[in-house]
């Protein structure tokens, strides 16, 4: 069982709302109503047009691996998880984000298809976990 990461403490309303959606199993990107841009990580103002008229849009959960590494020397809190397979994935919606991949690490490469495993998400764990999809 990998180390859990609870909702981080934050004083900002949009971050609180973001983490609540993640905890509910609904990972989102931000979609601007004014310019239509999708972005991540969440922020109060759209980075393309500074509008604050936007909403969180749930992602489909499918993505393509862009970069990855087997972290043998992780941050102290996650030492017992080593090696951790961390990946930067390009969501089918466009934005990129980072998470861990739970499957057999040896088979992952740039271009591998992955899918978010929303069943791992809760208020006690907002670490994003992806599973490898068969070719």
């Amino acid at each position, binding site marked *: 069982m990998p*180390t859990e*990461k609870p909702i*981080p403490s*934050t004083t900002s309303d949009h*971050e609180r709302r973001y983490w609540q959606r993640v905890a509910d199993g609904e990972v989102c990107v931000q979609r601007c109503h004014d310019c239509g841009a999708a972005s*991540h*990580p*969440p922020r109060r103002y759209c980075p393309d047009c500074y509008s604050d008229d936007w909403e969180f849009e749930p992602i489909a959960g499918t993505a393509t691996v*862009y*970069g*990855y*590494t*087997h*972290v*043998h*020397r*992780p*941050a*102290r*809190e*996650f030492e017992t*998880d*080593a*090696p*951790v397979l*961390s*990946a*930067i994935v390009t969501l089918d919606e466009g934005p*990129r*984000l*980072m*998470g*861990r991949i739970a499957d057999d690490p040896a088979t992952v*490469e*740039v*271009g591998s298809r992955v899918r978010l495993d929303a069943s791992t998400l809760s208020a006690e764990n907002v*670490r*994003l976990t992806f599973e490898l999809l068969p070719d």
Partner: protein
Amino acid sequence: MGAVLIGYGETSVGATPDSGYEELNVEATREALRDVGLGPGDVDGLIATAPFRNERFPLPRLVERLGLAPLRFAELTGLGGASHVNSIERATTAIESGRAETVLVVAADALRSEFGPSTVVEELADAVGPFEEPANIVPSLYAHVANWHLDTFDTTRRQLAEIAAIEHEHASLQRPDRVQRTEAKSVDDVLDSPTVATPLTADQCALISDGGAAFVVTTEANAATVDRTPVELAGFGARHTHDHVSQLPSFEETGAVEAGRAAMNEADVDHDEVDVLELYDCFTITVLRILEDLGFCDLGDGGELVESGALRLDGKWPLNTHGGALAQAHPGMPSGIFHVTEAIRQLQGRAEATQVDDASTALVHGNGGVFSTQSVAVLERGGSGAD
């Protein structure tokens, strides 16, 4: 009035338990001013770097402790490893606009003795931020790009590791007090060091060091009275693109593409005219990608360039002739200043065992964050100083 770099000073590096942030900054300043025969009263501008520890007002503290007051111009750097290449531009611009006459750029810290490697790694891991996979530390953020390179092109782990071997070789040729790593290492040695985050092994990650350096920038008129070969900033470029590595617009193009193009165009220098390469090297992958983005080879061909021998001391583009952050020293934020002082050293013909024959043009590069900030300077040897 044109501005030129006239000299530099460096502290001893590695572990300096008797010298903290303040003392190392004084030592670097003392050595730099002695190098050019100036005293504190001759300096009217200062660019300094804050310590790793949280401190609200480090600049006034240094102004007072360095004995430089009163100053007309003072500022702190804020671009991580890109800071000090940027400082060359800041200092020359301040002088050329008449805001200062002689600017000291100094950066030093006691990263190793005040904190130690594991504390530094943990503290920097906080910089990963809440929206990225929390097990990451800084080396693993870069490692994502390294595996992308290995998978996308024909790059091998050995080619990546050879960058560290080349730099250890260059460090081994230095006076022992100038480097933290005094022994050369083979590619196998580098690959056999513990894996931090695939494909990066420990020897492919920056050291954790104490130490620092300083350099002096002044008017051409002042330089003519100093017995040192002046070094000119012939071209400069910078690009700032992102914070999180996952938000780097494309792994295929960092800000170094445009920063390098701007610097080389302004200097009217092409790649064949570059005699020495001082590239920021927090990790081997940083060097590999920057070589490509600066146009020393095409995207994807960095591994072949490393393997070709071109980056060794007798090659076409000797790389990090001091040993870089991988083998010479990496005192945290001040690390990039050694790439600048080494370039001055080469262009002034003072590089001892690692002197590149007739070095007249050096390209110096700085990288901050995770490929977030790129700054590039082309430095050229000017006419001789006092005749």
